[in-house]
């Protein structure tokens, strides 16, 4: 880290000295117990998806803390305060949009992280505890996001609350106890309690679990972090999240669907079979299936094609998640049919498709691994041609990007001054993405 240039001027020397002074003192803290590795060449984001998830968690923490200033956790005030954040508070809509899209991104990155680790079999290198805490953290993330959007108290939120309450009551033994703790005596209690859970208890549990989940070498790539956060900002600007209709008890039931991460559960419930089995038991089994993977997959090989069980679990997991999520979003659009008729999913068709997916993915995985064992292909080492760009060209591009960066930052600030939040946020996101590419460009220059 401290490989600063020796021919630095006296002023720079002082900065370097004070930097080294600070680093020496920081070494006494826990911060340096964790090793942050800033890669010195372009690395695949697959290597640090967990870090990206954590960065999104921090974005959620910051935006969430800002939202806490104006949100009112009560039955009467919740929706109106969110509406006020949306319409009246300066930058309120920006913060809320970033918070919403960051929650989507965090869950998606966590799931992506899970499947990448599964396919690359990282749990084999003494990472079983990291794997198990990771699955718990992923589940907690989804529950955290789920209770988060319940706080808006629009019609979608009440649908989600109803699903959650029905599932809690349907669970034998522990269900009523949890219901007493979380739901209390009604909506007013419920809102305050899930607010406390959302802003304090769940994040605390997650931060404690991070100590059991983080590896000792953390790869921190500023370039990719800039690109991801920039992409998040641009998404937030392009697709402002709708506020929805306020929930009032006298409104008729509207056809609506929950957020995508609990949509598989909604699809299962809409088959109108037993609530407990569909809504609690099957999802728990699905999560448990991932949790026990390191303990049932005992093959020595690290290659995914030689581990049919893990390959089958991975493929069937991906396909089942996609199919149930999309199916959960589908509601028959014909308004002449009754509410119940439109929502119903034919259980034979639904589970037929799911069983077919399982047969195809597990069978396919076994056949594939068997077939690929029969004809062992030697590992092809195709060395790809290096890109021959002269150092001057890269430097030129980096300088151009730096100038563009200043321009874009200026534009974004000007747009905020004008009050055009959409374009301001797009420009901010763009500037972060350009920052990411500048960091990659500098890396290309220094590694030559």
């Amino acid at each position, binding site marked *: 880290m401290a490989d600063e240039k020796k021919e630095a001027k006296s002023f720079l020397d002082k900065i370097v000295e004070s930097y080294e002074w600070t680093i020496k003192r920081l070494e006494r803290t826990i911060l340096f117990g964790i090793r942050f590795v800033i890669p010195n060449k*372009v*690395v*695949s*984001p*697959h290597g640090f998806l967990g870090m990206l998830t954590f960065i999104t968690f921090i974005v959620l923490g910051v935006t969430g803390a800002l939202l806490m200033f104006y949100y009112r956790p009560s039955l009467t005030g919740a929706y109106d305060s969110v509406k006020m954040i949306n319409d009246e508070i300066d930058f309120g809509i920006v913060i809320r949009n970033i918070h*919403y*899209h960051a929650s*989507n*991104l965090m869950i*998606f*990155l966590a799931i*992506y992280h899970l499947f*990448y680790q599964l396919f*690359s079999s990282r749990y084999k290198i003494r990472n079983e505890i990291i794997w198990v805490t990771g699955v718990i953290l992923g589940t907690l993330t989804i529950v955290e996001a789920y209770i988060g959007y319940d706080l808006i108290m629009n019609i*979608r939120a009440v649908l989600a609350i109803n699903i959650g309450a029905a599932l809690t009551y349907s669970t034998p033994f522990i269900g009523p106890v949890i219901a007493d703790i979380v739901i209390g005596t009604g909506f007013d209690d419920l809102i305050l309690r899930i607010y406390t859970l959302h802003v304090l208890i769940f994040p605390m549990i997650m931060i404690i679990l991070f100590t059991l989940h983080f590896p000792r070498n953390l790869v921190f790539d500023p370039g*990719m972090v800039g*690109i*991801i956060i*920039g*992409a*998040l900002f*641009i*998404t937030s600007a*392009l*697709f402002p*999240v709708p506020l929805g*209709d306020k929930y009032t008890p*006298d*409104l*008729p*039931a*509207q*056809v*609506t*669907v929950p*957020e*995508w991460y609990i949509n598989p559960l909604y699809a299962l419930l809409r088959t109108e079979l037993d609530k407990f089995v569909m809504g609690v038991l099957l999802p728990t089994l699905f999560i448990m299936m991932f949790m026990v993977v390191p303990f049932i997959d005992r093959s020595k090989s690290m290659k995914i094609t030689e581990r049919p069980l893990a390959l089958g679990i991975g493929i069937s997991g991906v396909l089942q998640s*996609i199919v149930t999520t*999309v199916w959960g*979003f*589908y*509601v*028959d*659009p*014909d*308004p*002449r049919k*009754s*509410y119940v008729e439109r929502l119903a999913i034919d259980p034979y068709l639904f589970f037929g498709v799911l069983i077919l997916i399982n047969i195809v993915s597990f069978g396919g995985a076994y056949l594939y691994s068997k077939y690929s064992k029969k004809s062992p292909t030697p590992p092809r080492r195709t*060395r*790809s*041609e*290096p*890109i021959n760009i002269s150092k001057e060209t890269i430097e030129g591009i980096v300088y151009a990007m730096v100038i563009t960066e200043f321009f874009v930052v200026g534009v974004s600030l000007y747009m905020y001054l004008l009050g055009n939040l959409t374009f301001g946020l797009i420009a901010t996101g763009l500037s972060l*993405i350009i920052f990411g590419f500048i960091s*990659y460009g500098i890396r290309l220059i220094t590694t030559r």
Partner: protein
Amino acid sequence: MDKGLYIASVFFIFMGIIGTWLGLFAEISETFYEMTGIALVILILGIAMLPIALFKGGKPPVESFIPIFALLVVGFFTIGWNFVVPAEEAGPTTGVVERIYLLAGEYWFNETNPDIVVSEGSLVEVTVDNVGVVVHSFRVFGVSEDSGNILPGEKVTVSFVAGKAGVYDYICTIPGHVELGMKGTFIIEQSNQTATSE
């Protein structure tokens, strides 16, 4: 080129395109709209990862651009096409404006659910006045959008272009109200201009 990252980003871009299309343009089911947020996140994540996947470690082989070209084609015909051709042929109006005033009560429109006849291509403005005591709504199924909830005492105007000639239903979309009788016939007649030109 990083093969694993390349496969992941192409897969994400594909999922993002399909999700955005289902959410915004497909018109299969209105509830797909709620999918758009996550679809855009996946799409942009895929686009952000693609250059790193392609150019990491050296020049990408030429055939790696074939799926990207296919994605561009798929993206254009699902999403881009809607920007090139913004509205369907519902656009050409004859300029005729037909104003219709309906009372909504328990459980009827204008007490007798009269047939509504408009000419093809006219701009229809239906004002629904809820004189009842419960929430109602209005929609010409297959022609107009839903009016949304019309609270008791509220007046809401739904305007739309009468597209293809035919016989449709106008209904109240509150669950159960159609069964109780809030359903009438909405007829779009072929206009004289098109009839004479044939």
